[in-house]
């Protein structure tokens, strides 16, 4: 092991040819996964913990999770070199290890198994809780538990990807912190998006709903800040002074610092919303949290691709924004369309009534 000098190196010729996948559509995909999984976790926990507040938010969280969950696979589809073969993931999933096919593909596992499961569980919970008014029943709790676990796995998906190829390097690079960070980000982002949706639906802020949602952002934000600060500090201690790491560290540090600043602003805004919620601060909170997680997902995109390499794969950045931004915008518009359909024809209300009210709708 030559870890004291790790990482160092140079770019391989094929790395120059392939470059770094640095596409907005991939970041949008990761962002959508965070929103879908965070909302799924919140709605699942609401049923499991019999939370009155989360119960009121069940329709909204289900709509957000379904709207983003149904479309997020469009992101990688747009990124495939042979998109017409995407269905092969379902036809020939690499999920049974053998001598010829060692290991299990996390991509196949998630796309072929966990994605359908997420959608089925969300629909099942909608049916049980909103259609049949079976809140608190055993079947609803079982579905909620499964949904929470599936949401948990999805929320940590990208961090888990780091471990599937070369676990020793991922561990060494302190990647074990990433799944926790990714989880808290997902829940905080889902809460912020729910808050924004509430503001849009109700044209105002209802304190009884805004306070718990902002509290989740505060808790998630503070956890994230502590973990990330520790991770960045450790990376700087190990990597500073390596000339070959200069380019990587500049972009890596820049995105890290941006992520940290945005998360601090989010926490401050969440405190403001918690104390005296307003439409402006709630909207700003949602947008800042979105930017915070966006910056961190971009950082993930870099980490994912550089973790097993020379870590210099950052150099040839060619970002065709005009092309890829349109695909990202298309994903957002499709998600909004799905949300619109769910709101107008299926779920029909963003929130249930308070204690004693609510129940079966739709």
């Amino acid at each position: 092991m030559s870890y004291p000098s790790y990482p160092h190196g140079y770019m391989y010729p094929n790395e120059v040819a392939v470059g770094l996948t640095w596409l907005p559509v991939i970041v949008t995909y990761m962002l959508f996964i965070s929103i879908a999984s965070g909302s799924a976790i919140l709605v699942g926990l609401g049923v499991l913990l019999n939370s009155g507040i989360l119960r009121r938010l069940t329709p909204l969280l289900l709509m957000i999770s379904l709207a983003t969950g149904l479309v997020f696979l469009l992101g990688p589809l747009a990124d495939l070199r042979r998109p017409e073969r995407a269905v092969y993931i379902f036809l020939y999933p690499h999920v049974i290890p053998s001598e010829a096919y060692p290991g299990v593909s996390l991509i196949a596992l998630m796309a072929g198994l966990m994605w359908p499961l997420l959608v089925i569980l969300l629909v099942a919970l909608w049916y049980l809780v909103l259609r049949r008014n079976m809140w608190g029943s055993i079947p609803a709790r079982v579905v909620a538990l499964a949904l929470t676990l599936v949401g948990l796995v999805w929320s940590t998906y990208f961090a888990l990807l780091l471990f599937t190829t070369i676990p020793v390097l991922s561990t060494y690079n302190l990647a074990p912190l990433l799944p926790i960070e990714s989880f808290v980000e997902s829940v905080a982002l889902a809460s912020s998006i729910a808050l924004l949706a509430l503001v849009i639906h109700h044209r105002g802020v209802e304190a009884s709903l805004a306070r718990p949602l902002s509290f989740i952002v505060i808790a998630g934000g503070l956890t994230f800040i502590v973990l990330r600060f520790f991770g960045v500090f450790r990376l700087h201690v190990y990597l500073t002074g390596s000339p070959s790491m200069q380019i990587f560290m500049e972009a890596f540090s820049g995105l890290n610092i941006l992520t940290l600043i945005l998360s601090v602003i989010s926490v401050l805004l969440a405190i403001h919303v918690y104390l005296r919620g307003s439409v402006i601060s709630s909207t700003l909170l949602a947008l800042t949290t979105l930017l915070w997680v966006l910056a961190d997902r971009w950082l993930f995109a870099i980490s994912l691709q550089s973790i097993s390499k020379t870590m210099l794969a950052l150099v040839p950045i060619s970002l065709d924004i005009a092309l890829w931004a349109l695909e990202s915008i298309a994903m957002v518009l499709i998600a909004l369309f799905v949300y619109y359909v769910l709101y107008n024809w299926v779920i029909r209300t963003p929130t249930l009534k308070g204690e004693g009210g609510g129940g079966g709708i739709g």
Partner: protein
Amino acid sequence: MSSVSRREFVKVAASALVVATVLSASKSRSEEVRGRRWAMFIDVTKCYGCMACVVACAAENNVPIGVFRTWVERHVLPGGSVVFVPKQCNHCDNPPCVKPCPTGATYRGRDGLILVDPDKCIGCGACIVACPYGARYFNPLTGVADKCTFCDHRIYLGRLPACVEACPTRARVFGDLSDPHSEVRKLVDRLQSKVLKPETGAEPQIYYYALPEVASR
């Protein structure tokens, strides 16, 4: 009642068929894995950077311009001397590139060769990202992942890989590592050889002699 039973029977039978098909496909391929263990020994002191191997490989395998199945790195040592280090896919025993492939397009094939089935590759790039040696690339002509095959279309006809055959100094030696009488086995046993990035745990099957530290990454 009987119609329900029939439906259930069809469901169970269909599921069993799918599982059996998947298992038998993976088993038949697994049986091919065992056998010889193709490996390469590269004597860095013999390489003088003529690039004949690179050209031969590109010509033999129709490798497009800009990407490489094999390449030769030039490194300047602290004393000012220059070394040339040929690199390529290491056909690892514990291949990091095979694990993330979602469709099984990348697999460990006959005699441990790491190969790509171009008809199953969806072009996700997971294997390219996973390979710690930068040995994989997207073939710009086909849109699928591509890499060195140790010239599997030649070696089973008793010929050497194109890069080995073209090397004017015999810096590359190819053979069956599991055969104690093979030249590659003897060289690996006799000379102190190194592999690239051993810390990844990939267990590469390209062995280097006199590999300088600066080129070992």
